[in-house]
């Protein structure tokens, strides 16, 4: 299977770099998978779980929003925050969600909508995490 180059960068570090088979991205307007030879695209990302497939091995990385760019050079994901599943502190993540729920009251109008949307994304990540933990 053809591979392509994938870079995952967050402001603080280069989180992943290498040749991969497939990357599944949680796009703002729906998930999409990228294979070698994908058409050039720039897409916004919602907070979610990004799956990297290399030689039949899956690696899951949590990204909290950002931007994906596919060009002939490969795929680059600019993530606001990128944490691999093993590194994630679940307790802290739950605390973040609780804090966000707490802060909801302070928002108004469109800001409130955005906050709720973001909270939903976070909760769905948590749900997926718990689901995979049970297997």
């Amino acid at each position: 299977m053809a591979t392509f180059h994938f870079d995952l960068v967050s402001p603080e570090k280069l989180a992943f770099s290498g040749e991969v088979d497939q990357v599944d991205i949680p796009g703002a307007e729906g998930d999409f998978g990228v294979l070698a030879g994908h058409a050039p695209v720039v897409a916004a990302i919602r907070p979610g779980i990004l799956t990297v497939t290399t030689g039949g091995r899956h690696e899951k990385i949590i990204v909290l929003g950002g931007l994906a760019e596919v060009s002939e050079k490969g795929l680059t994901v600019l993530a606001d925050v990128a944490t691999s599943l093993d590194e994630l502190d679940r307790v802290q993540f739950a605390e973040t969600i609780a804090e966000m729920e707490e802060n909801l009251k302070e928002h108004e109008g469109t800001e409130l909508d955005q906050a709720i949307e973001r909270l939903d994304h976070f909760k769905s990540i948590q749900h997926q995490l718990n689901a995979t933990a049970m297997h």
Partner: protein
Amino acid sequence: MASLKDMRVRIASTKATQKITKAMQMVAASKLRRAQTAAEAARPYADKMSAVISNIASAAVGSPGAPVLLAGTGRDQVHLLLVCTGERGLSGAFNSSIVRLARERALALIAQGKEVKFFCVGRKGYEQLRRQFDKQIVEHMDLRSVRQLGFVNAEEIAKKVLARFDNGEFDVCTLFYSQFKSVIAQIPTAQQVIPLVIEEGGAANTTSYEYEPEEDEILTRLLPRNLAVQIFRALLENNASFYGAQMSAMDNATRNAGEMIRKQTLVYNRTRQAQITKELIEIISGAEAV
């Protein structure tokens, strides 16, 4: 004339000072390495970000619906100077060279009849600017309690700047920081961040992308984020520059202290010998008199 004991005390105190400056130099050297790695780690993100933005923006900049962060408010009456300096001194000319650049810019703008506001990040710059521009400083942020500089710090600053921009408090925002070239060279730099300046030549490699969601929506998401990225980069560059400046300043101080110890020891030995000779003469002449 100082007594021998006084001189011994003085030499001891200079040696103590030298030990401190030497220790500071070594601490700065090790922190510099970490700061440099952090600055380098942040580079790919910032580079990619500006590449994507210039790609989209070069198309959007002429259109009437371009976001204000890109096109500007159409005026340049009120300028916000975002001055990033260090939290501590003992770093040679690091803080004052940034402040000098900002001050010169401010005075030039005032001379043109513009209004100037300051946003100080870092204690040192705030203290220096307060003397002259106390009333113009609209906000001051301390990063003293921050141990490891994270993106959240930059985001917080960006949020405050954007809130003021949305309130129409200023038209142009310029970022002042020190660019890290090498240990001995840090260049104070002014960079305009609002409205964004698109670098020429970025449009040369225009691949026709598909956008999801629409271009302008991506742009409106990206531009505030880019501000935070630019500030983050400035903070990291500043951090590396600070330790570089401190390292060379402390290296100088250590060398000066060494020189001083050498001179003081010389004077001390001469005085001691003179005194011994004097005492000998006294003894001999006393013996002769008997």
